[in-house]
């Protein structure tokens, strides 16, 4: 059903008139031209399309637009603030926690949400928390290293 949906996107207001049953992934990538959120599997299995909504990670390929009405939506484009990389982004660079980079947006946002809910997770909890994000290049141990480093940094903003 076509309707006007309003939400906060990366800190700014968005008002969008569209079929509100469409999945957020395609609205982001097409209508809003934010292509950092990736299509990987379309069934919520791989995590390439992860976004953070009201502090929790969601798979945008399975999330109808109407479900984000009034919500605060964070995509990869909103993670760096004022030109400064988020500590997770910097840690991913420092640890070489990506190769092709296609899963990276989803990895970062799921890691961000993980640290919001548990700022100092054990390594096992990080592994469990990231279990449903797929990486084909095999950067797994470096991704865990990067998240672990941020989680143990004192004063790390999340």
């Amino acid at each position, binding site marked *: 059903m076509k309707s006007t949906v309003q939400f906060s996107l990366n800190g700014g207001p968005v008002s969008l008139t569209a*079929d509100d049953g*469409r*999945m957020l992934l*395609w609205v982001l*990538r*097409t*209508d809003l*031209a*934010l*292509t*950092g*959120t*990736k*299509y*990987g*599997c*379309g*069934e919520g*299995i*791989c995590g*390439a399309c992860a976004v953070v909504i009201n502090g929790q990670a969601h798979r945008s390929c399975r999330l109808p637009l109407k479900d984000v009405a009034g919500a605060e939506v964070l*995509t*990869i*484009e909103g*993670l*760096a603030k004022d030109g400064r*990389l988020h500590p997770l*982004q*910097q840690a*991913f*660079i*420092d640890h*070489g926690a*990506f*190769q*092709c*980079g*296609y*899963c*990276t*947006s989803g990895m*970062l946002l799921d890691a961000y949400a993980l640290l919001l809910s548990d700022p100092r997770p054990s390594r096992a909890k990080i*592994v*469990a928390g*990231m*279990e*449903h*994000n*797929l*990486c*084909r*290049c*095999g*950067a*797994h*141990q*470096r*991704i*865990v290293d990067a998240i672990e480093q941020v989680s143990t940094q004192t004063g790390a903003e999340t």
Partner: protein
Amino acid sequence: MAAPRLARREFHKLVGGGIVVLFGASALPMAQAQGRRPYPSDFHAYLSIGDNGRVTVYSGKIEMGQGVMTSLAQMAAEELGVDLASIDMVLGDTDTCPWDMGTFGSMTTRMFGPALRAAAARAREVVKSLAAARLEVPGDRLRLEHGVVSVIGEPGQRVSFAELSKSVRIAEAVDQAAVLRAAADFSVMGRSPSRLDGAEKVTGAAKYAADIRLPGMLYARILRPPVHGAALNKADTTAAKALPGVVVIERDDLIAVLHAEPDSAAAALALVQADWRLPDMTLGPDTVFEHILAHAGDQKQIAVKGDLGSAPVARTFETTFQKGYVAHAPMEPHAALADVRHGGATVWASTQTPFPTRDSVAKALGFDPKTVRIITPFLGGGFGGKSASGQAVEAARLSQICGKPVQVERTRSEEFFYDTFDPASVVTVSSALDRDGRISRWDYAVFAAGERGANPFYDIPNLRIRSAGGTSYGGAPAVAGLHPFAVGPWRGPGANMNVFATESQIDIMAAAAGVDPVAFRLKHITDPRMRRVLQAVSAAFGWRPSVGASGSGQGVACSSDAGSCVATMAEVKVDLATGKVTVLRIVCAQDMGVVVNPNGARMQIEGGLTMGLGYTLTEELRFNGGDILDRNFDTYHLPRFSGAPRIEAILVKNDDLEPQGCGEPAITTTGAVIANAVFDATGVRMLRLPMTPERILAALPTSAQRK
């Protein structure tokens, strides 16, 4: 160098002014080394130095995660005497980059690298001679550093690359004999700077083919057959056409639904009613091996040594190994955006082969290839699967028909369906030990995998290697009906299977000979590089010599691939109740000659080994004839975080050797090293990959038998 002047002028228009290093006929030896066809005679640049002092490097290679954007830039910066930060990379653009066959076979560093370094070294000499004239000193008194030429001993006497480039336009042929810097003098190569693509990739700014947007573009969804070999009886597009904003294109072999929103195109496609004739479907994952043995065709002799018939034989070993079909499954599905208007075509494509893709797009459109430009953004993984780029042709045809830019992005289901799978394959080995416990005989035949990695590096006096139904590079064999769907090169093509078979067989014989597997290997290896990596990994891993299955779960495997020597050790735990293998750690030592970027090399080794755990433990395509049953990650299981072990990569120093391949060698050891570790843990020899819990459980003796 006879340059067609027009071509050169047009080229300058494309790349701008400054110092441009072009190649011409003199670069042919490199083209031959790279294979298949010589470079065309029109002019392309390896690099240019702009009047802002920035250096642009052009390469027909592409960045799919392997890190060549950074390592190629390091090579150019090193030879040229500029900082890495002054380098801009243009990759995979067929209008501006030198022709290239494609990015595969771990060839970028060892094949394109020398040409690029030579071009940069040549450019350094051009800059030096310009500076010598400007500063009025002989060239041998000049030093090039950080993009500035200065007089040795008189640092005030200096001129920057930017100043030199302002007023000149020089074209130079690359001289293959250019003097390259020695490894001992490296200041940019041999180090691990941050990846040049890092900031883009962590901020979502990095563009992949499906991220390119053009005004008025349409997203296409294409009607696909339910199974390979199905033929369309009829399709009814009436309901799809009735939706607002939908454009339907119907050609004999191409029915597509287009819309300004990709999801709306998908919704419209779901309304297309199609009636298909289905082929017979009988072949499956368990029956395919017999089929391959029966239909692989003539055996090609790959290597022969001594005389198999007269070899001294004390004990013989006959083994048959099997491996199923494996998907590439890059996280980014194939995608392309084509703009075919005004008599030309520009296609942004997720492809490992921009130049061959240009030719196939031109052919499909009826265009001269000169009017087709392929631009390659970042690839979200390739692994050989994006050597085939049919989506670029589809997008171009649709754009030509509808007169608007058209994007084709495969769904995950289409990505599985149209993958060029790593072929299912069989290896038979008949080998023998003589009375002294030395390998006296090795008769090896590989079916469908191809011969890469089939010829052992062991010192064996009598051997024969044969291959049927495969190719040396993993391409589809010219045997009709061998596979029910497309197959093609998959990271380390053929070698994954051949190393699994060879290194398992070596372990089988070591156990029979009553010798520790590492000692047994060293007894048969004369190559000093291979000996060194094996000794290096043994020390770092803490190998505990043992005979037969020690129960501790340690395994070893070696491979000689893409010019590199690699030795890998792993420690596993096998749950006897479930058959599940847990890989606790992997240590891998590799000699790849001069290492351009140590951290990048480690990432390739770790990544390859992690990826390899898929075909080793969980990944095998399920199919029924041409019906691809695995269409997403819910049933096709990639390695995940919980299964990713700690991996330690050791780079064995060898600066006397030019840089060798790194993207593939390590992965080729994965199947063997885990199979050998499983044997060491359980005493059970697994002969088929993947080693699923069910297969291991079936192979394990029952608890009653164990007692």
